[in-house]
């Protein structure tokens, strides 16, 4: 439905009709730059501190497990639980100055922030639907649909509720029940409408201050951060005069360059109530902050950094180039929630661990634990929290990537494939070693071997070429053995790597594989080519044996590539005696036809060169 609505706008825009003047009546001022500028002038931004009045870095944890559903407040600085209350949360915790608010069954519940006790409860009537809520200072904001189906029909209103008493301060009827949000901060409250409008209201009075018309990209989220107000879906618009009409061409729009495995979720889709609760989406999204920059209204990720949270892994990317800056692999357990609070990335795991990473380096800077707890999700109210605990030696990027590749968790192959690719881009002999280890590992999907092998082939690590050659030879020394439950390494790809790396030390091991029954025709072809590339004349007897043994074998009738490759290697490395054998095979009727044809052609093409070589001898 949202996509359809946005598509209509795009269609209209393509005909030059989606101009401000053509906006429908309730949105007649949508996209007005002056309105947006005036609204932003009221925005009290800039304080890098938690929302709670005490300014303490807090985490509000939705707990589950044997003790039942509870809500706990945790002081991150003191590393202690402040309170725990029975609470069956149906959506996220939002934090005000001295209260927190969360959805419960058929109600919105306000709690005292210091002790967690229930202050008020606002029932959601049978004909009402809670679309969302937010908190800012002493006020909670609730978005409710009355009648109709979800996002269809009926009416919707935004109400301001006193955080202390639960009393309604004002109510603003919205022009459509197709609404999402709200988001509140700095005295403003924003509501999404019909996927293309962002209505900005005065938090104190409910007066409508401005409406953004998101012309080129559906607006499915709006966020109020200390550095500004942002909206978008597949990218980020900084709310400003320049983006009042949602132009992606303006400097106020930015999207990070991220690798394929990343699901570019910049914030939760606020039209979808299920994303209002802690869910798998919390574990797989992009964390970002913006550079505070009011002057030129440009949107730029803070430090050009976009952090990707992917279940147990965190990656810091250069948002402009997509280059990987750092990686972090959290052992064993998934991080169920995370937040970018400025200088630190905070996270909490399902088994009660709380952690922080330095946003610039990915170094672990904080560790705490709630023993025996099952954590369903966390809301962090810890803006500006930047711990610097000593948590042991920090792994290098190569080490971190290696640990991801070797992680026993078999669910994350896309991440592992990315880690291999990223690892390959790192310098140093130890990287080659890591890539070789991947090819040694048994039971990985073929694509992983392929990726690691291609990375090996592409490596230009001249400084460690000799060492790499030795390592490659060592890996190739392993053979399949049923009795020992051992399989061969990825011979085909390793042979290609050996040829590309000119790893002469690997030649004897390649020869041994050429003589093994488990070596596939494809691997045999790669070996033959590698031996030729390595100028391994010592391998000629093995190539001769291979060719004669299989030259009449019907398994090569369909695809004689390996035989052809072996004959090519013999022609490249051998002399007259090899040519004589090849000539015999080309004339022998039982030789696979395709090989015979190839040999006749190859012998003719190389005849003059061979004659010259013979004469020179």
């Amino acid at each position: 439905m949202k996509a359809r609505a946005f598509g209509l706008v795009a269609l209209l825009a393509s005909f030059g009709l989606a101009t401000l003047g053509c906006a429908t009546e309730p949105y007649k001022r949508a996209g007005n730059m002056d309105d947006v500028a005036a609204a932003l002038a009221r925005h009290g931004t800039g304080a890098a501190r938690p929302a709670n009045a005490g300014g303490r870095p807090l985490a509000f944890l939705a707990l589950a497990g044997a003790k039942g559903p509870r809500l706990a407040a945790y002081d991150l600085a003191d590393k202690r639980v402040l309170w725990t209350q029975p609470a069956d949360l149906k959506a996220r915790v939002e934090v005000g100055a001295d209260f927190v608010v969360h959805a419960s069954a058929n109600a919105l519940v306000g709690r005292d922030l210091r002790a967690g006790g229930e202050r008020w409860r606002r029932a959601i009537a049978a004909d009402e639907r809670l679309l969302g809520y937010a908190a800012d200072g002493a006020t909670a904001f609730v978005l409710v649909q009355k009648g109709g189906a979800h996002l269809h029909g009926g009416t919707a209103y935004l109400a301001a509720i006193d955080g202390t008493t639960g009393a309604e301060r004002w109510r603003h009827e919205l022009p459509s029940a197709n609404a999402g949000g709200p988001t509140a901060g700095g005295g403003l409250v924003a509501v999404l409408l019909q996927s293309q409008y962002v209505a900005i209201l005065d938090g104190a009075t409910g007066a409508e201050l401005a409406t953004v018309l998101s012309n080129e990209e559906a607006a499915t989220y709006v966020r109020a951060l200390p550095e500004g107000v942002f909206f978008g879906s597949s990218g980020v618009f900084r709310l400003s005069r320049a983006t009042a009409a949602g132009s992606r061409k303006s400097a106020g729009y930015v999207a990070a360059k991220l690798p394929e495995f990343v699901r570019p979720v910049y914030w939760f889709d606020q039209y979808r109530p299920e994303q209002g609760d802690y869910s798998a989406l919390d574990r797989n999204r992009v964390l970002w902050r913006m550079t505070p920059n009011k002057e030129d209204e440009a949107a730029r990720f803070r430090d050009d950094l976009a952090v990707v949270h992917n279940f147990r892994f965190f990656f810091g990317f250069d948002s402009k180039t997509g280059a990987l800056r750092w990686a972090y692999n959290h052992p064993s357990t998934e991080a169920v929630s995370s937040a970018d609070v400025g200088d630190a990335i905070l996270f909490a795991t399902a088994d009660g661990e709380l952690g922080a990473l330095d946003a610039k380096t990915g170094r672990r800077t904080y560790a705490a634990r709630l023993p025996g707890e099952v954590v369903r999700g966390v809301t962090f109210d810890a803006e500006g929290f930047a711990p610097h605990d000593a948590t042991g030696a920090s792994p290098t990027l190569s080490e971190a990537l290696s640990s991801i590749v070797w992680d026993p968790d078999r669910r994350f192959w896309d991440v592992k494939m990315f880690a291999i690719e990223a690892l390959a881009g790192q310098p140093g002999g130890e990287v080659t070693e890591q890539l070789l280890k991947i090819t040694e590992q048994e039971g990985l999907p073929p694509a992983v071997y392929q990726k690691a092998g291609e990375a090996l082939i592409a490596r230009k690590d001249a400084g460690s070429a000799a060492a790499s050659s030795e390592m490659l030879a060592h890996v190739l020394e392993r053979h399949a053995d049923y009795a020992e439950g051992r399989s061969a390494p990825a011979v085909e790809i390793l042979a290609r790597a050996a040829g590309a790396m000119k790893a002469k030390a690997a030649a004897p091991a390649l020869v041994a594989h050429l003589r093994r029954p488990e070596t596939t025709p494809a691997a045999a072809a790669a070996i033959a080519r590698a031996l030729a590339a390595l100028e391994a004349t010592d391998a000629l007897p093995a190539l001769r044996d291979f060719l004669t043994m299989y030259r009449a074998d019907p398994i090569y009738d369909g695809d004689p590539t390996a035989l052809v490759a072996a004959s090519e290697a013999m022609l490249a490395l051998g002399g007259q005696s090899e040519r004589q054998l090849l000539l015999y095979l080309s004339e022998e009727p039982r030789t696979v036809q395709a090989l015979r044809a190839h040999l006749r052609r190859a012998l003719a093409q190389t005849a003059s060169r061979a004659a010259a070589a013979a004469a020179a001898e």
Partner: protein
Amino acid sequence: MGLVLVLALTSTASAKKAAPVAEKKAPPSVPKEKLDKVREILLDEDDAAAIDAAKALGQSGAANAVEPLLETLSVGGSPERTEAALAALGQLAVPSTLDVLELYAGNRTPEIRRAAIKAIGAIKGERSLGPLLTALGDAAPDVRAVAADALAARKAEGAVAGPRLLALVKRNDLGAAPALGQLAAPDLVPQLAELQGAVDDNVVATALGEILKRDDVRDGLRVDVIHTMARLSGEASTAALVEYLATIPAKDDRPSKKEAQKVVDEKGTVK
């Protein structure tokens, strides 16, 4: 053609020539002209004739039968022809053929590997031991079984082959079980018994059944083995015990006999 060839080869003059009883009998030899003819057939296009020729050479036992077979293998041929040449070399069991046999033990076709390993197994001596042990790691059960049987025939190699055979039995390899039972050092028996539950009972029973038949095993150990077999399900354990009982003379009343009989009575006879 094949039959004629066989008759022709086995009635060579050298084979007929009488030798003094006390002297070592010289191996027979195929006359040169016949050998040339066979060589021609072996390299000819007719696979069936070549296979017959290879068989005939193998059966001849002639010392000069090796060369044409090696020539055949050196230029390669169809899998069937190759297999026949390897089988013939196995019959001739000449140590100088080991290199070629070892080469073909690495062929991709399991039947060819099996023939090569069987031929290697027929050649006595330390040099053939390595390829046999390697073949215990082959992916094809038939190839492993042939290697295991060849090793079992060499009692002296038990210390070397035992651990690899045990590794195979641990992987439920029935083909390795008889060889393990025949070769296993007594200290491997407890390990074998501990496999109950982790490995198919019939595999364990087959190996233990072979241990019972061995002369070099003390009767006390046999009794322990029988106790283990009593706990195994499947017909193999009962069959092995019945087989063991059949090997014991009627007047022999060793304790293991009584124990085996008791277990058989409890388990019932094999259907």
